[in-house]
């Protein structure tokens, strides 16, 4: 045996075998995800280029109608192209409600994150735990809790009438307000956690320095604190905005049949709308928007880790 030169080869062989074994070990997880999550997305893309079937499903005829009908539709009487107003209204509702929810969760989440970070070191984990527990409870149950709160005969209306602020129950259910309220409630923890992580790292000496230099509270907040925790704010905003845009349960329960959001418009195409290709195209569009936001998020947070 000529050992010396084989040593390198043996090692290369061992490395190759190790890599192969590691891939083999990962196969079950990868297979399951491919078959029941990633693979179907590819089929969905194909479906978006087909023709709707007569009752449901698709006919195997190539068509780009699904994609164009996202934005425009052909008038049934005079065959002219028109903006698909119904879709545009729903897109606008989805985007505007998602932005409003993001702003609201920021307005409530930033002070909450700050509050947690100013607790004594041993107590912070407790407060964080308190903030995260509800987000692990069933999303549907939390949505039902909000529904029961804001119903015409719900607790909020009863209290307001009892106190005498209003005489008649306010109609809150099945409005845009209800959806925004519900999403703010449901997604608040997603804003608090990344901001807390950023606030936690804040160097208090910088604050001391700026107060020593006679900065006002306002200036300290806007010129020192906000710029320093900006990565946390951006991260939290993406984490809230993304699920809002794809929300399905909250608008279905609180928005009712009239106030659809993106997710409900997709569902509609597989139910009463009977337009699977359009549903597939809308899904793909939503997926692309969300992926762009999340890739941006990952870049920010990994940048953070490098800097911090």
């Amino acid at each position, binding site marked *: 045996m000529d050992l010396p030169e084989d040593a390198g080869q043996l090692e290369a062989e061992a490395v190759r075998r190790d890599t192969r074994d590691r891939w083999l070990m990962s196969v079950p997880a990868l297979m399951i995800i491919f078959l029941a999550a990633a*693979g179907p997305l590819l089929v969905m893309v194909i479906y978006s280029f087909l023709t709707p079937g007569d009752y449901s499903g698709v006919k195997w005829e190539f068509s780009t109608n699904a994609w164009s009908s996202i934005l425009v539709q052909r008038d049934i009487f005079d065959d002219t192209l028109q903006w698909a107003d119904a879709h545009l209204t729903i897109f606008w509702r989805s985007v505007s409600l998602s932005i409003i929810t993001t702003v609201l969760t920021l307005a409530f989440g930033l002070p909450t994150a*700050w509050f947690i970070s100013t607790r004594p070191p041993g107590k912070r984990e407790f407060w964080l735990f308190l*903030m995260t527990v509800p987000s692990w409870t*069933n999303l549907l149950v939390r949505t039902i*809790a909000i529904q029961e709160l804001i119903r015409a005969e719900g607790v909020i209306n009863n209290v307001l009438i009892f106190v005498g602020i209003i005489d008649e129950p306010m109609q809150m259910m099945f409005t845009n307000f209800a959806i925004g309220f519900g999403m703010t409630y449901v997604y608040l923890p997603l804003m608090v956690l990344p901001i807390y992580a950023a606030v936690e790292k804040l160097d208090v000496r910088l604050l001391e320095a700026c107060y020593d230099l006679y900065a006002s509270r306002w200036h300290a907040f806007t010129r020192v604190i906000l710029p320093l925790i900006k990565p946390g704010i951006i991260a939290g905003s993406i984490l809230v905005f993304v699920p809002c845009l794809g929300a399905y349960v909250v608008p279905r329960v609180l928005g009712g049949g009239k106030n659809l959001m993106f997710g409900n418009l997709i*569902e509609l195409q597989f139910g009463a709308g009977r337009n699977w290709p359009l549903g597939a195209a809308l899904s793909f569009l939503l997926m692309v928007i969300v992926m762009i936001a999340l890739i941006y998020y990952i870049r920010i947070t990994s940048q953070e880790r490098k800097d911090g």
Partner: protein
Amino acid sequence: MAERSAFSVRTIPGFSAIAIFCFVAIYAPILILVTFSFNAGTSLAVWEGFSFKWYVAAAHNEQVQSAALRSLMLAFVAAAISTVAATMAALATTRTRHFPGRTMIYAMINQPLMIPEIVTAVALLIVFAWVKVVTNHTSMIYLIAAHTAFCIPFAYLPIRARLETMDDSLEKAAADLYASRWHVFSRVTLPLMMPGIIAGLMLAFVISMDDVVITEFVKSAGQDTLPTYMLGQLRRVVTPEVNAISTVVVFAGAVLVSIFFWVSSNRR
């Protein structure tokens, strides 16, 4: 400048008040929901006395029984399979130098977290509808596959986190003492990994129990789980029976999550 001594650079006026409001506000709706599950009347907002009658009603409702049983079965099977697959994948992707394709494996495992649920749900509906037509087979296998897939990343995270805190000195010692590879794994590695595996199992179970969107699109007729059953009930007149079911779901979830936190914080 009387309060000069109390001046703290970390205080921002009003922030504590908003924070306390938030903590109250995230628990209040759930507490109200729980409270009215014990209402003797049918109202969800007017207290008419204490009673367990809605729990009794829910427990005797055959649809609730079968949905609850189906949810538990589904969550158990999906959590078990996903935890086994995630454990293997975690062993393969941690405690090693970078190997070709590792980033791809990460990306693939986390893929279900990146895609909005409604998108995955629709994609599964399309594929499974076709498979159901071709094979004429409509068992729970579709729900089990779908749940297992989106549970894998949740099971994977705590197991990987646990593995990354483990150094391999004990395993090396075992190998030095002539333990076979299997013995090293079963007597040393696996017991050390156990807290992570249990945490992953719990998390996967909770995630599966909570799912409504994907289940709603994948289920065949008569395959309601507890969440999809509740979603269906909301279209009708809602009685505190829904609150009773919700309360049980919330408490079961809270217990599991508390155990999860307890297990994963006792990692040393």
